[in-house]
């Protein structure tokens, strides 16, 4: 009986665990899932070891949902292992799909990050200045830990991904819908994003007008009008470049979109596209005035690449070689 059930695997690489929580957020639907599927690997919730996965036959798992970006050698090794063991590999969440928030690390070198994390933060107590090494010797034994990579990568940089389900995290309904589609065998072309091709603006019910802003504001500086487009009100909203699927969850509660569902269909660089859409709201024939208004956006690269720096054209800051 049980061998007719769908064999599921779930894994987190470099992520926060929010996607795993989103899977649990499908609530009582998880019981339906348990009826049609057996979970064979889910480190955050159940006790499995990597060797259990290694012992599986290739293609043993029907579907594997992998969330989190690739940050270190462990992430890559397990991603490759799960790719071999899975018939269908789904990149779950924005980190796996596009690099996610942790992709912002690509503005710094690995050395800068390790220095800050292990030596410079206020709460760090590390008088000997020890930075963890991939291999170290303790009492005559060699200890190995995963090697932190130079940069943050998205999952499909290293393995073939069959489907993408972005979101930070993806809404539970979307995960439930994806599982339904898998059970029913109604999946689209491999390589597809399991979300609508439209943009967040399409799902956002606010009234959009021919806009001109003479001041950019940050969300805490005003209580926005609930009917009007947030861009029209001088807020930096990434809706025009961001994929729909969330039901405009943020703009519905008066917060601008920050782009967590990744680029809309046909957008090759979400940050550049969103920046373009936002910058032109400040268009004026007075160039000096326009410059003043636009420079009110203090951190454009960090703002517009908040969820997708490793997926952008340049993938991160271009580092000068060490002097």
């Amino acid at each position, binding site marked *: 009986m049980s061998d007719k059930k769908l064999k599921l695997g779930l894994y987190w690489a470099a992520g926060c665990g929010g996607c795993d929580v989103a899977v649990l957020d499908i609530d009582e639907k998880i019981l339906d899932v348990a009826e049609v599927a057996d979970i064979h690997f889910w480190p955050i919730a159940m006790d499995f070891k990597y060797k259990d996965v290694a012992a599986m036959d290739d293609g043993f798992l029907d579907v594997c949902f992998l969330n989190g970006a690739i940050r270190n050698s462990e992430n890559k090794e397990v991603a490759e292992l799960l790719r071999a063991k899975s018939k269908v590999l789904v990149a779950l969440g924005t980190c796996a799909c596009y690099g996610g928030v942790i992709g912002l690390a690509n503005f710094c070198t690995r050395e800068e990050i390790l220095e800050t994390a292990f030596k410079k933060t206020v709460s760090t107590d590390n008088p000997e200045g020890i930075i963890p090494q991939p291999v170290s010797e303790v009492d005559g034994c060699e200890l190995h830990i995963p090697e932190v990579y130079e940069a943050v990568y998205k999952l499909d940089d290293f393995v073939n991904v069959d489907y993408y389900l972005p979101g930070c995290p993806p809404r539970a309904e979307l995960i439930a819908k994806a599982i339904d589609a898998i059970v029913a065998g109604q999946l689209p072309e491999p390589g597809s994003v399991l979300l609508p091709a439209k943009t967040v603006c399409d799902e956002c019910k606010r009234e959009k007008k021919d806009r001109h802003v003479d001041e950019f504001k940050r969300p805490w500086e005003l209580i926005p009008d609930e009917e009007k487009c947030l861009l029209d009100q001088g807020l930096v909203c990434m809706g025009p470049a961001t994929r729909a699927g969330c039901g405009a969850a943020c703009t519905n509660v008066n917060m601008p979109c920050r782009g967590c569902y990744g680029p809309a269909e046909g957008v090759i660089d979400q940050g550049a596209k969103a920046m373009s859409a936002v910058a032109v709201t400040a268009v004026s024939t007075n160039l000096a005035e326009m410059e003043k208004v636009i420079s009110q956006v203090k951190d454009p*690269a960090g703002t517009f690449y908040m969820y997708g720096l490793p997926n952008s054209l340049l993938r991160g800051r271009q580092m000068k070689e060490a002097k």
Partner: protein
Amino acid sequence: MTKEFEPRIVGILCNWCSYAGADLAGISRIKYPPNVRIVRVMCSGRVDPSFVLKAFAEGADGVLVSGCHPVDCHYIEGNYKMWARKVMLETMLQQLGIEPERFRLTWVSANEGELFKQYVTEMVDAVKKLGPFQKPVNWMTELLEHERSLGTAVQEIAAGGGVGE
């Protein structure tokens, strides 16, 4: 033998003013460095910031965008739109570690062949001083290694690639 570094500059010019200005420079036989590859667009307002980033990502050493002077835009305000993007793009490029000399927005009208020559010359000189735009060796190490291990073609930007390559 070491060849002098010849930068590859992508020039994105608007149909109505700057492309005609470059054309005028040509038919007037004005001499300027041959380092600029020109792409004609209908309006500088058509230039998406991702065009500029794509040029850099695919090996350009500099990007020159040129449109009609303010007030002259064939489509009324396309050049203002590009100016708005340019202001934000300059900050973004700086955050992404790209020197400011590598990107420039200029205004060149259809009768300013000389000015086009001047801008191209200035830009080529500035970028020559900076050297090639290339990703340093330690950048994306793991990805490059992975691609090599697969035997797929790795897009590596040849240092100092010359004009006419």
